[in-house]
């Protein structure tokens, strides 16, 4: 997509003159104006990004009550208290549980969907738009809609279960069931998005690899697992990391899924309270304990880093053996 040079006749370039006349100014310009252009980012990020980041850590070392007059330094006390806090561990398990239940099927479904979309289709753009449309809706709105779909009495899901002869499920008050319902929302929103990313990578795979595999007698399924999936590994890792970062930060869906009294707890017995919700519960209403909330935020950050690293390690291991060029060591 390079832009064409202008179409003026080659005689025109009047090289020396205009440059010399404004030589000083232009040297100043090329030297310093780049900093001017990137300054807004660093200004905004410095004030509203970097400073808060460091400050969160500072706050987390204090007994910082919003209403309190002074904020005594308590060192690591917030962290030690947090590690002994059963509600924190409960929220951690919820977060990881919802994350696993949602991410694994989501990526598998996306892979499958991308494979479908990678065929000679009529109305290609139409299909792509159809699978992406969940991604461009309002999260809060959709969480409300799903909250009704997963309702106990008149919810459509329980009605469908009843049609096939299954018992109704208490989606909002059963811990595991609420995880599944929230995962369903997350998957509904993100499967199509991931499918498009994987599709883009699939289209970059050279066709002759498949022809060669077909000549070697590989079936369509075998081709998919032995050619497509290994070559998609970097993209799959990318999708997994994005899903990890998003999944562990989950807030809007579980928050809106539970309405009524004290929804920030994620149900009467904290059935689906995620870490972010726990942070909000402590830092804002009802507790307003900023020090404790900040400690939760930092542990959440650590968790994201750890899970992302583990993901990368697992995926490297998994894909390594199947890679067609592995023996040549092209990627080492």
């Amino acid at each position, binding site marked *: 997509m390079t832009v064409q040079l202008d179409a003026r006749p080659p005689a025109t370039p009047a090289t020396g003159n205009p440059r010399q006349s404004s030589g000083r100014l232009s040297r100043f310009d090329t030297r310093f*104006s780049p900093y001017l252009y990137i300054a807004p980012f660093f200004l905004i990020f410095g004030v509203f990004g970097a400073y808060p980041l460091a400050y969160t850590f500072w706050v987390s070392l204090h007994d910082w009550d919003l209403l309190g007059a002074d904020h005594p330094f308590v060192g690591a006390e917030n962290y030690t208290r947090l590690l002994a806090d059963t509600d924190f561990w409960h929220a951690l398990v919820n977060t990881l549980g919802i994350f696993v239940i949602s991410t694994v099927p989501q990526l598998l479904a996306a892979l499958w969907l991308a494979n479908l979309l990678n065929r000679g289709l009529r109305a290609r753009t139409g299909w792509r738009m159809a699978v992406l449309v969940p991604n461009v809706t309002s999260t809060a709105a959709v969480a409300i809609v799903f909250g009704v779909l997963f309702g106990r009495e008149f919810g*459509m899901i329980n009605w469908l279960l009843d049609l096939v002869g299954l018992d109704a499920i208490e989606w909002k008050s059963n811990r595991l069931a609420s995880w599944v319902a929230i995962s369903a929302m997350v998957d509904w929103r993100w499967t199509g998005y991931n499918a498009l990313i994987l599709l883009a990578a699939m289209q970059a795979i050279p066709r002759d690899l498949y022809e060669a595999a077909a000549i070697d007698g590989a079936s369509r399924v075998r081709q998919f697992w032995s050619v497509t999936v290994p070559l998609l590994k970097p993209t799959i890792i990318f999708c997994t990391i994005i899903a990890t*970062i998003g999944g562990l930060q989950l807030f809007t869906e579980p928050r809106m899924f539970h309405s009524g009294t004290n929804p920030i707890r994620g149900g009467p017995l904290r059935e689906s309270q995620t870490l972010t919700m726990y942070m909000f519960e402590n830092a804002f209403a009802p507790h307003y304990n900023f020090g404790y909330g*900040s400690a939760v935020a930092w542990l*959440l950050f650590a968790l994201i880093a750890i899970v992302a690293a583990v993901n990368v390690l697992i995926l490297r291991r998994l894909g390594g053996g199947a890679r067609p060029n592995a023996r040549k060591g092209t990627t080492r």
Partner: protein
Amino acid sequence: MSRLWRASPLTYLALVVAAGLSVFPIWWMFVVASRSNDAMGQLPPPVTPGGNLGANIARLFDNTDAYFLTGLINSAVVATTVTVSVVFFSSLAGFAFAKLRFRGRNAMLLVIIATMMVPTQLGVIPLYLLMTKLHWNDRLPAVIVPVLVTGFGVFMMRQYAGQAISDELIEAARMDGCGTARIWWHVVLPALRPAAAVLGLLTFMTTWNDFLWPYAVLNDPANPTVQLSLRALSDGYYQDMSQVFTGTAIATLPLLLVFVLFGRQIIGGIMEGAVKA
């Protein structure tokens, strides 16, 4: 497309199911929004629109707890301002990173990429304290100013500028006596237009959809964004579901409209971003 994988009827069937699952919750949102509250108790549930949309809208805008109209206006102001600003500043910085040489360029770009990894949660509490000091709590600058330019925007523009604009073109403009500002305006910006459109669309959608930070900082129920109006609606003591769904439908409508108009560009942007990432 090569004849290697021509789609079979089975493929189409699977895609119809996938598309159906994708679209159904949205469709159903509009169905309930256009019916009376009886629709919620009916089994089997109705799947076609009714004639109650006007009455539901009237009830929604009369609801004094939700401040829905204020929410809509606020969201429009916030999303528009942020979009224009992000596109403007990102195209400037992206141009600088892609096409200008300066000391510390690579290190600074690395910082920008690193900022994309930091979760918002980490900043919420101190940002809240900062907003209190600035007296921006409950006011729109609190949700606008921190995202006037984003690492994602800068990075995206830099990637696009790197491949869309040839160095010769910039060199030629320089020969003609253009300063960098004029080069940006006359050469770079026109070439960046497709990427700017995609960035603008994505930014608008993200900002319109944002919930976490507005939820933290806009506590005054009389001055919400539209997403916060939805929260007020759905947390209400008495659940008037067709009114709530009318709210969700209206809050989703601008996003759907953008998607219908620019879906092709959005898809292209997502897929292109993936290959380069």
